């Protein structure tokens, strides 16, 4: 499924999707009611989702050459091994990129503000591997 369709199913407003309409409001029964059948009004059982606060993405680098890139292992199985192979790829193919490997502290669902601070102070970009 493409991104536009996925976001449409999420029910995001047209303002975000540049004209796409939430599908949740359409009935999809495909059957037309016989005239004699009584109709009922039933409640929409869904809860109330919070609005989405859009976060502008950080400006991109003009080039990755000569920059410092952090590879962050979030702790899912295999993620660290994959990133170490990526580190080897950078060493072979872009040796002027400084690559720093870090394993995020704590279980995968916990935040790691000290690491984010370090990356922002010492790095130019980050690649995060999120399992499985």
């Amino acid at each position, binding site marked *: 499924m493409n991104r536009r369709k996925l976001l449409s199913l999420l029910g995001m407003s047209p303002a975000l999707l540049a004209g796409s309409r939430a599908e949740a409001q359409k009935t999809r029964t495909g059957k037309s009611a016989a005239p004699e059948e009584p109709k*009922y009004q039933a409640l929409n059982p869904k809860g109330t989702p919070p609005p989405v606060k859009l976060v502008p993405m950080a400006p991109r680098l003009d080039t990755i050459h000569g920059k410092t*890139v952090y590879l962050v292992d979030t702790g899912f199985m295999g993620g660290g091994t994959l990133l170490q192979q990526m580190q080897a790829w950078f060493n072979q193919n872009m040796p002027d990129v400084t690559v720093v490997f870090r394993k995020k502290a704590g279980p995968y669902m916990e935040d790691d503000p000290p690491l984010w601070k370090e990356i922002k102070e010492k790095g130019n970009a980050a690649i995060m591997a999120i399992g499985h």
Partner: protein
Amino acid sequence: MGIPSAPMITKAFKDLAILNAAKRGMPHERICFTPHPVWGKTPDELRVYVDGPDPVSGKPLMKEIVDALTVPLSDDEKKSGIVSVSVGPPTFTDTADNLQEFYLNNGYTDFLPIILPTQEKVDAMLKGTGHKPDEVVGKMAAGAYPAWSYTVRQVAASAVMAGCRPEYFPIVLAIASSGVASLFSSTNSFAFAMIINGPIRDKLEFNYGIGALGPFAQPNATIGRAWTLMSKNLGNGGIPGDTYLGSLGNNLNYNNVVIAENEDASPWPPFHVQRGFKKEENVVSLFRGLGVVPGQVARGSSANENVQFDYQMSDLFSTFTGFFGALIIADPLVAIRLKEQGYDTKEKLIAWLYKNTTQTVKDYKSRNYAYLFEYPQALQGREPFATWYKLPDDAVIPHFPRPESFNIVVTGGQTNAYPQAGNLSYGVSVSIDKWM
């Protein structure tokens, strides 16, 4: 972070990654994908992933990553502001058959027939509580997602759909107020359980006798089902690929493990009293974990004249992950015999089980949950994991991190002395009376 980043995720989680990024404000986040899975692959196999294409875009993975970090942002990617999320109109009008089909097709059900939440039925349900229909009950999320909120009326719709009677509604509201969803996004296919305590068990005719955990009483069946429907509808859980990733799924999710405690037949204080409530209070207590296994499979369960239930339970727990606790579900015959064998309090039994349910460090380290959840904590110095990871492989350590990992509830009809055990951890106890 304020610097460019490129999240890299395996292809199996494509929809989840895109949707979760959108829910958190980055609907156009530049996500790169690798083949699935990475777990269990050798370094050489993963090097093939790195050298190969992104399986979603078809472009070379490393080019995709470098582009994600360097290609200038589009106008959409720079957008800020607040956008609303629609779940459709407040009501739907159609014939009964068409509405059944509509609710099913839109993921509002558990794919079993429902009672349609008509205005009349919902109004009747609302008479089951003194709380106002528009009162906000709480928030619920089915994992690491932004939580959804809901009112008494919205809870009532799920209660009607599940087949609850209005007099059950305070229990459903108490569960809703906890914010605990019974469908969780993890790939582990979690199971959930609840213990019902207090006089309401008899007032509503819960079954805590023969077949206590089976489909033999309306409140046991429908209140458990309502929890799952609420998790889908109020917390937006249970959408495969989006808010639910359980690889195998869990049959217990249909109506969860609903345990009305057999308080009168138990030789020990009921569960809610252990948690600080008075015996006459009505309380629902919630658990989360991996599932329930029967005690008959354990060593020590032979029909000799002096069955060692303590040893039997300890053996049963040997395959459990200590990350979740152990919930002992004991038939009264088991509990009474344990008391006769010297365990005059639950605490004594728990102390024995904590001391005698052990494992070697080597076995501990080989466990999935130890690596995933406890090793990272050990690196941070959190106990007991930090100490455990420093011990030699042949050292013997407790199977569960602390005595509080164990919980005991008594239920069942005393037709035989069988326990069951859940690899389930205690979450929270909520007053039902507050929602009367």
